[in-house]
């Protein structure tokens, strides 16, 4: 009777060991994924994960990142100034910031002058921003068009015609009847090769490494199924800790009984 009583918990403990082992092996991969991605996410800023972008086409396709619908292009001398959705490019060089509209671009004394939203951007030919004037005559007005008046002056159409130079030092209002003297910037077609390059650049600057790691961590990279799998992994981890605790308690009791 006493022997029988001793045997029963031993079998239970062995069975619990087996379950604990199976659960441990099953959860191992998930623990690794969770731990490694968690470590990365804890140091997002230091590792600049939010500034690193994924450019692999299959991953962009997996995330259904669509090609841009809106591409507006202007020529400024030999250069192209292109708005791809809300991103601005000088040739293939991205300009910082987001813009809703592009009214035109001209080349004036080796400087590219771009009118986007209510901004007048002065850029070097390599795409470096010289200055961003975000208000005209102290007011924020959307610019409808930009044109060249002379070798040193350009005109902005904000309902009224305003002329200035690259220093923005003097603002002069022009009469509407003087419009014909201005060489206005007009939309231009974009070479197919450059178009494809900008489309790829646009798609490749949408998905951050932080987003991908976050989705790996939560399982969302595989959609709803992935979330369900990670839920299951979390349950397995709970069971692992409970079974481990239970085994420890059983062993402790066994040792106490022996004494």
């Amino acid at each position, binding site marked *: 009777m006493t022997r029988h009583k001793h045997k029963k918990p031993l079998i239970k403990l062995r069975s619990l060991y087996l379950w604990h082992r199976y659960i441990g092996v099953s959860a191992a991969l998930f623990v690794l994924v969770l731990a490694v991605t968690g470590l990365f996410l804890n140091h997002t800023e230091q590792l600049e994960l939010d500034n690193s972008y994924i450019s692999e086409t299959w991953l962009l396709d997996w995330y259904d990142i669509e090609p841009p619908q809106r591409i507006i292009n202007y020529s400024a001398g030999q250069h192209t100034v292109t708005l791809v959705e809300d991103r601005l490019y000088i040739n293939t060089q991205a300009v910082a910031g987001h813009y809703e509209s592009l009214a035109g671009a001209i080349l004036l004394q080796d400087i590219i002058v771009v009118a986007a939203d209510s901004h007048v951007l002065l850029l070097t030919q390599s795409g470096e*921003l010289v200055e961003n004037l975000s208000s005209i005559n102290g007011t924020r007005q959307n610019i409808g068009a930009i044109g060249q008046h002379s070798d040193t002056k350009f005109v902005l159409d904000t309902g009224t015609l305003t002329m200035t130079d690259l220093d923005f030092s003097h603002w002069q209002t022009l009469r509407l009847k003087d419009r014909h003297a201005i060489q206005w910037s007009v939309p231009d077609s974009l070479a197919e090769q450059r178009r494809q390059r900008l489309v790829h650049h646009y798609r490749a600057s949408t998905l951050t490494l932080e987003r991908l790691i976050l989705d790996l961590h939560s399982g969302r990279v595989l959609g709803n199924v992935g979330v369900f799998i990670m839920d299951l992994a979390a349950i397995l981890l709970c069971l692992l800790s409970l079974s481990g605790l239970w085994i420890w308690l059983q062993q402790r009791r066994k040792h106490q009984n022996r004494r």
Partner: protein
Amino acid sequence: MSRWLYLLFVCLFSLSAHARGTYQEPSAFINEVFDGTPPAAKRLWLTGELKQSTTAILNHPPSSLRVRYWGLNSRTAWVLEEIGKEKPITVGIVVDKGRIERVKVLVFRESRGWEVRHDFFTNQFVDAALTNTRELDRDIDGISGATLSVRALKKLSRLALHLHQHTPFANDAP
């Protein structure tokens, strides 16, 4: 209960929405600083050594190669921008005789950290100067929950003081 929660949510949302926005147009700030008759804007090119020192202060290269400022006698006024967490904060800074006369948040676009616009915070910068290591010569108390905005304002204050030294108006100091 749900009504109270709804009310709390509406209050918090409207507070946050109210906190974001333009507190003063940069042109109005410059007008105010020079009593309605501002001098013509001048430009400072951030090239060579000045670009390097600006990069060191901001911890990143400056967003533009040219900065505009307004100067009269020993005073200069600057409208500078720096990103707090995600969006730029526009700040007006007046420097007189190498010391900060005034700091004002003009446009705040972030969803958090708007407390930096209050005078109790910006007044801490008044009379601050730059040390040899291009740090402020005094401690600025932070605001919990607004760490990144506080950091942005400190950087811009150091930058305005540093840029002031590279203008002809710095030599007017006695």
